[in-house]
């Protein structure tokens, strides 16, 4: 979370032909166009009889920054991440990547942003780890020539070599979580949203995740990490926010 400062675009941004960050800012959404991820006035209410889970949340994430989002169980952290990821729509407000919403350019939104949902879902139980990664590389629409090499690099980076030819339903929960994290980082997104990423991870898995985040930061990427308040976290974040009563407050 940073002020709306302008910085040099990351190499990845240039590759994906993102809007240049040194363009003059116009009154219409000026700051948002220069920011990797912005949430503006996000409201969400699940049932009419209940209080809104999000009430006008504003959040801006800058290049090369890591942000922690905490809060009690049921505070709306996952809902906020799902909205930021373009998975569900807010009732009011908007989530934007470089100034555009997922509805405006869905493919580009998801090329730039990757989301690790909480839990252990999102895997094909009957596929091997390698096939799973290859499948997601294709679905991420990576350059055809890159797919094989990127998958093998990911297998190495996330220490999945011994598991690569094993079916997902035959590996442990912690190993599945490592695979899910590997899938999240596979296409080298610029913005990564992690919802409770440490679930089931052992110390080695947590270290691998740290390395992946360090690589993201080296690429001037953006991280939003969400976990319940009280979960011991050793890592440093540039900003720390708590979601309470549908609003964000600085920790």
């Amino acid at each position, binding site marked *: 979370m940073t002020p709306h400062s302008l910085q040099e675009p990351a190499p990845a941004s240039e590759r994906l032909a993102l809007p240049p960050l040194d363009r003059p800012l116009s009154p219409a959404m000026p700051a948002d166009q220069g920011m990797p991820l912005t949430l503006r006035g996000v409201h969400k209410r699940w049932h009419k009889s209940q209080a809104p889970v999000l009430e006008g949340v504003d959040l801006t994430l800058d290049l090369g920054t890591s942000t922690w989002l905490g809060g009690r169980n049921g505070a709306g952290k996952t809902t906020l991440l799902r909205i930021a990821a373009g998975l569900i729509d807010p009732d009011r407000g908007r989530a934007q990547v470089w100034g555009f919403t997922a509805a405006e350019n869905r493919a580009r939104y998801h090329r730039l942003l990757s989301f690790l949902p909480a*839990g252990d879902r999102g*895997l094909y139980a009957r596929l091997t780890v390698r096939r799973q990664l290859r499948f997601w590389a294709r679905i991420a629409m990576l350059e055809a020539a890159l797919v094989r090499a990127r998958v093998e690099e990911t297998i190495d980076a996330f220490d999945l070599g011994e598991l690569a030819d094993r079916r997902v339903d035959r590996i442990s929960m912690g190993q599945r979580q490592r695979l899910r994290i590997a899938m999240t980082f596979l296409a080298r997104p610029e913005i990564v949203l992690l919802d409770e990423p440490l679930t089931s991870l052992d110390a080695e898995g947590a270290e691998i995740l740290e390395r992946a985040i360090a690589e993201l930061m080296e690429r001037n990427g953006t991280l939003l990490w969400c976990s319940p308040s009280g979960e011991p976290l050793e890592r440093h974040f540039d900003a720390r926010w708590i979601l309470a009563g549908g609003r964000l407050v600085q920790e």
Partner: protein
Amino acid sequence: MALRHAGLAFGAVMRRDLHVYLSYRTRLVSQVLTSVFSLTLFYYVSRLVHVSGFPSPASYFGFVVVGIALVSVLYSCFSISEMVRQELIAGTFERLLLSPFGAIRGVVAMTIFPLLYAFMLAALTLGIGCAVFGLQLHWSTVPLSVPALALALLSFLPFGLLFAALTIATKQGSVGTSWVIALISIVGGLYFPISLLPEWAQTASHLQPFTPATELLRHLLVDSPLQTSTATAIAKLVGFAVVLMPASLFALHHAIRIGQRRGTIIEY
């Protein structure tokens, strides 16, 4: 370039479904056995009962074998809704939705393997019919049945996509699919000629693509007489595909967008 990437992603979905299918080793055997049992049953029924309108037991057997082959295609079309439900439960649908490839293309891609598989199973059923039960195919027009079946699939596919949309909206995979398949089997004339049906049911049988597809394929495979001309049957199938395909894609898109707006897309 984008088209090429999309094509590769379609291929990846097909390979995924193939690998998942192959991981269940007895599935093919059980499906082949089901075909063999059906063929055996109708072989003896055709010899036991004289069916009016058919000059010989062999001609009714040929008629019904094509119907049996098409039933597997029909099941494949409707299996998409169950596949989507499984994706919703596994959380992989959410992943598709969050990918640059996207959920709509993902669902359309999910139809490729089941349809190719149904195509193969239909060929196998006909092959067993020939090899074991002496089915006489009209070989000079058999090659034409391949594009005819492809066209039939294009006109059947929207039904699968519509049920997939319904699954996304209701979270239930088999909402009425078995009823619809049973109904189509009757009004589509898969097991007996529609001329046996009451007049109102005969009218209903012309309001869906299964009847012209079945008639056309029977004509090409076993030389059954066509009620109309080949061109009319083809025109009907093209018409159904042209009208129903965009409508089903719109329904799919709409179901996903409503789910995203209400937040129910993550439910299962």
